[in-house]
């Protein structure tokens, strides 16, 4: 017992230290958003604001169409998530329950797409979106992100843990494959679907580089694109405003994660993927 206690203590100390390291930028972010410009550049750095003020938030809400940005971002993130979930479910289902020639090859080549760097894909994707006339529209951002290899992989792993005889039994009862997917398989993989959705949503919400290429007009901007608007390369950046906007941007994904973290952890533990 004593040894266990010691081990537990050391484990907890390590966890607490790494938690503090991870939390530091967030603390800095929140506290900076509550400071005025003078305090931000104060040396030595004070982690807590002296006279906390919400003026940065009011200025952001006042000067920028923040609700429009949020709306744009939400539209893109939710559409991408829905499409990715549908394609992952269908593809995962196909890989698990259908036997066809070249199944393993197809699956393996799909896994290989994880390893293609994004920079390689940008050119062809950009040309495609441009020739479809979707530049500067949210659809241009969405279209290249409606299928996700990781999602398919995770769905397949989860469905493989369901005994195959359950599917076979339902087939013998006369159910169609789509009926089985909807009424039998989906309820059984729901925790994974929830956690993968959150992952997709947060990724799409935070996406920066691809929307930057596609979206030109400010009315189409997402929150991530709006963030650097306060920071100019020539100096005179308004750090307080940038920080306030950053806090506003992170609130939604943060809440989502807290609500669903139980599912998220389970999915990754089950599938053997360690984050």
């Amino acid at each position: 017992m004593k040894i266990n206690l010691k081990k537990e203590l050391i484990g907890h100390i390590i966890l607490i230290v790494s938690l503090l390291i991870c939390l530091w930028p967030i603390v800095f972010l929140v506290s900076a958003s509550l400071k005025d410009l003078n305090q931000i550049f104060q040396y030595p750095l004070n982690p807590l604001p002296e006279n906390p003020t919400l003026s940065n938030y009011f200025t952001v809400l006042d000067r920028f169409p923040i609700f429009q940005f949020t709306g744009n971002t939400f539209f893109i993130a939710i559409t991408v998530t829905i499409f990715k979930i549908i394609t992952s479910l269908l593809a995962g289902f196909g890989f698990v329950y259908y036997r066809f020639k070249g199944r393993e090859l197809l699956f393996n080549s799909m896994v290989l797409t994880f390893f293609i760097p994004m920079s390689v894909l940008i050119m062809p994707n950009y040309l495609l979106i441009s020739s479809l006339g979707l530049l500067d529209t949210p659809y241009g951002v969405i279209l290249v992100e409606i299928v996700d290899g990781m999602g398919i992989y995770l769905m397949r792993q989860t469905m493989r843990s369901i005994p195959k005889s359950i599917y076979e039994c339902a087939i013998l009862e006369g159910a169609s494959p789509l009926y089985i997917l909807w009424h039998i398989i989906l309820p059984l993989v729901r925790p994974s679907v929830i956690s993968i959705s959150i992952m997709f949503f947060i990724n799409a919400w935070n996406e920066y580089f691809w929307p930057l290429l596609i979206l030109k007009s400010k009315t189409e901007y997402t929150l991530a694109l709006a963030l650097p608007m306060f920071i100019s390369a020539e100096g005179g950046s308004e750090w307080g405003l940038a920080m306030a906007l950053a806090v506003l941007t992170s609130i939604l994904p943060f809440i989502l994660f807290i609500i669903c973290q139980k599912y998220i952890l389970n999915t990754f533990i089950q599938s053997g993927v360690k984050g």
Partner: protein
Amino acid sequence: MHNIVFNKVSKTYHEKEIIKQLSFEIKEGERVVLLGPSGSGKSTTLRMIAGLEDISDGELYMGETLINDVPAGDRNIAMVFQNYALFPHFNVWDNIVFGLKLQNLPESEIKERAKAAIEMLNLKGYENRLIQSLSGGQKQRVALCRAIVKQSPYFLLDEPLANLDAQLRQHARQELIKIHESCNSTMIYVTHDQVEAMTIGQRIAILHEGVLQQFDRPEIVYDNPANLFVASFIGTPAMNLWPLITNNGQVTIGSSTLELPPYVKEKLTTPALTVGIRPEKLRLVPVERAMLHGECQYIENIGNIQNCLFQVNDMIKGFIQFSGLENKINIGDSLGINFNWNDACFFDSETGINLNSKQSH
């Protein structure tokens, strides 16, 4: 007609032929057991009937219809799986009526059928229970119940009792036979357990490496196995099989030279003969009057009977089974053993085929 006819059915998987030219007929309303060691292809055969595996070659008929390409859902089959395959997110009632609802039956008939099946399997009061709250035996009964309510003419079972403990199994065997007798469907039952096969099957089909070895009534399979594989597979302890060389109609076992019966002499084509005799057909007799002389090497006491391993010489060993009360013998004792030639089976040592096999199917 709800019979099933296999006509040279083969199954190739990854270029390996796992079912080889299977031809036999299961009659309407019959209770047939597919028996074999693991990897013999018995489950594959059942799954081909169900439509869960493709048929690579040959023809499979159900009734008058060729069903090679009929999808599983259209074959009107009820199946019970080894792991029960219950839908874990439904309660007992929803599991049982799942297939009936898909058939768009009127609500009143669904209720009537489900209630009758629940009654039959003593599941009353469990309708609203969730699957994970049930014991193994209860899950097995729910799976049976779900198959019965379909009232389909074909009833397939894939090792349905394998996950039950020994006491429940005997009870479940009786129950299965009762169910079959009341619903009269054609029942095909897969197992690797020969006790289940002998007790449940009206006929047993024994498979080995994808080839049908024998298809006959249990007592014939036991008393007159078609070949050496069946002889060694059925029965515990297995049939004693002694490879011998015949010489002018005589065989030498240890120090004894014995005359073969005339009907065997007629059928001999090669001198290599394997004599098979069940342990319970051997009798202990005083050494002076014995046909065979052996030494006891090992005794297994099962309470009511004893199995004794004896050795005649380096080549000839065997089990003899006798009542534990009648005889007291110890390891190392000399035994005198008698038997009746009529109780013995004779196999061609090279082909393994029973010289006296009756092809009754």
